């Protein structure tokens, strides 16, 4: 058994009675199954196909503090966020270090039966509903997901009943605030029943200059003909490590979109798995990152066309400066019965320096014969001819480069369907490209 496995096994053994005292039985079972998975499989090795561009184990074995229950933190929400998308009217939820911050309204049921709140509370109040969904996204995946299952105890819960529409988007603000190095694991569960719809915006922020390790799991269940729009913006500092796993499960004729924008971060790894469990589904996944210094951003997709007549589309872009590195893996699996599948994937990256590196690996695995699939990857520099054209009109080289970078990013920004969010992101990306975006730009704390 390797050291990292040992660390979590010990942590689990020391705490399992405390967990069991408050957990319903099915959770206890999920946790012990997850631990069993970890001890049998260990953590992905350096050469592991899925993690070869992001060897994460050293981070997980590091001496981060791991709190299994919320630690009391002084934090005044009112003066914290002048942020984030001023023109956007949302249900704001704040998670501090992965725990639900609002201690008064931990779980709200709206008139139309929509429930929004803390997962920890929801487990107590709606155990049968949670049991039906929690950890049902996958049969087994990797040990990073497993440690989240084994240790996470809070996060956001959303339930939208049949035929109901959540008009205002939910905005989840993940605040990382600590005076010691910290590991944070939260778990979000979004359940959309047939013909319902919801939009979720997630913002990740580090607010203290210490090292953070985030390992989050999001499970999304979109019922028949449900519409879900998921938007994630990552804005963390260079000492942070962020691993996220999102599982989108789609029933017949459902339509899900996800957009992941990484503005800043030390080491970022985003896993996105999409599974079509019914026919006629649509999934759109967009991603954009801008990296510099020694940052590393890795997007890993797995799109499982298990059923016929589904469409998936993935567009991921990256702009890498300095000695930053990036990776993209896009595996599309078209199963034997999935006739009339349409799957499109594109990954394009711009390297601004000779030191920047991008590994791009689209993968198509097709077992059906009547399918339309295309995929492609490009890694290149800014177009010299375009640059000259702009400069020949009097635009400075710096400005011309910015215009071309922004134009490159715009294709993804333009896919954001929530208008104020699109404007805000466009502004942030522009600032980021100009080098004017300090990570705490929009917050009153201005920690360095």
């Amino acid at each position, binding site marked *: 058994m390797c050291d990292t496995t040992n660390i979590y096994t010990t942590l689990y053994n020391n705490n399992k009675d405390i967990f069991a005292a408050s957990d319903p039985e099915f959770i206890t079972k999920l946790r012990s199954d997850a631990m069993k998975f970890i001890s049998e499989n260990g953590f992905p090795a350096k050469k592991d196909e899925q993690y070869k561009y992001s060897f994460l184990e050293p981070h997980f074995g590091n001496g981060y503090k791991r709190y299994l229950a919320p630690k009391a933190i002084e934090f005044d929400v009112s003066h914290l966020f002048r942020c984030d998308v001023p023109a956007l009217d949302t249900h704001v939820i704040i998670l501090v270090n992965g725990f639900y911050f609002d201690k008064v309204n931990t779980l709200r049921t709206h008139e139309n039966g929509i429930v929004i709140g803390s997962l920890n509370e929801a487990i107590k109040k709606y155990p049968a509903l949670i049991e039906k969904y929690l950890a049902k996204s996958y049969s087994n995946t990797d040990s990073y997901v497993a440690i989240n299952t084994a240790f996470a105890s809070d996060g956001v819960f959303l339930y939208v009943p049949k035929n109901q529409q959540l008009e205002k988007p939910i905005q989840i603000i993940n605040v990382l605030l600590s005076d010691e190095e910290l590991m944070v694991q939260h778990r979000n569960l979004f359940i959309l029943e047939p013909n319902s719809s919801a939009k979720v915006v997630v913002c990740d922020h580090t607010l203290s200059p210490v090292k953070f390790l985030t390992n989050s799991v999001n499970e999304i269940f979109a019922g028949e003909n449900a519409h879900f729009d998921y938007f994630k913006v990552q804005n963390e500092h260079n000492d942070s490590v962020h691993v996220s796993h999102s599982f989108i499960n789609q029933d017949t004729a459902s339509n899900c979109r996800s957009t992941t924008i990484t503005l800043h971060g030390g080491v970022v790894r985003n896993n996105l798995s999409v599974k079509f469990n019914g026919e006629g589904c649509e999934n759109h996944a967009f991603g954009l990152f801008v990296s510099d210094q020694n940052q590393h951003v890795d997007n890993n997709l797995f799109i499982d066309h298990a059923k016929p007549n589904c469409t998936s589309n993935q567009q991921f872009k990256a702009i890498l400066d300095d000695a930053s590195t990036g990776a993209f893996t896009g595996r599309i699996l078209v199963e034997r019965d999935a006739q009339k599948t349409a799957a499109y994937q594109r990954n394009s990256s711009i390297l601004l320096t000779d030191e920047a590196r991008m590994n791009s690996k689209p993968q198509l695995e097709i077992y059906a014969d009547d399918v339309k699939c295309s995929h492609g990857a490009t890694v290149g520099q800014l*177009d010299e*001819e*375009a640059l*000259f*054209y*702009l*400069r*020949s*009109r*009097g*635009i*400075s*080289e710096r*400005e*011309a480069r910015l*215009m*071309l970078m*922004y*134009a*490159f990013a*715009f*294709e993804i920004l333009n896919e954001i369907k929530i208008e104020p969010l699109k404007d805000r992101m466009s502004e942030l990306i522009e600032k980021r490209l100009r080098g004017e975006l300090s990570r705490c730009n929009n917050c009153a704390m201005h920690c360095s």
Partner: protein
Amino acid sequence: MLIINNLKASINNKEILKGINLTVKAGEVHAIMGPNGSGKSTLASVLTGREYAQVTSGKVSFLGDDLLEMIPEDRARKGIFLSFQYPIEIPGVSMVNFMKTALNEHRKYNGLAPLSASDFLKVMRDKKSLVEIDSNLTNRAVNEGFSGGEKKKNEIFQMALLEPKLAILDETDSGLDIDALRIVANGVTKLKTSENATIVITHYQRLLDYIVPDFVHVLMDGRIVKSGTKELAYELEEKGYDWIKKEVYSEEKI
């Protein structure tokens, strides 16, 4: 305004310009004609500061400055404009943002405050009517999906906005239909003053009926081998380049 003195330039160590001499004064129109591949576009590239052609010797002075020492954007701000033979498409960069940035950079260079959004739109409107360019073009990304002729029109629209001192039009007439040619040529003529100058690179005399040149030069194999007045253009149209080749050839023999 522009003095080119024994200018030589190479592309990949192959000499393309082999000693160009040309003087252009304010208020003048010069036409440059010459066979394909003779170096006309290369000359335009060297004057605007494109790096693929390396200047190996010679001097170019523009309004008293050493032009070859200047970076491309400063040349543009100081008043050089090239209407490209092959304008490229730049998806994602809007015409409006492009021209607003360019115009304000010119203004900054000349010590002027940037134009307000509404003033800029007013200027856009005026210049649009000058070249009769459609709004649905100027509302799009730079040249994206424009037809060949629309791209050429768009070059002259940009010229109208930036009001250069020296405009170099590289085969602006190619790809334009008969009406568009007249509109574009008239636009160029309207922009003409005694303060600015134009170099027109073309293969066809037709354009020169609209933009009447004071001088016509023949560029052949990297040199200006013959200069004359507008009548020379008629002669070329009629007889082609062979007779000049023979002339040059026989001169060289002597």
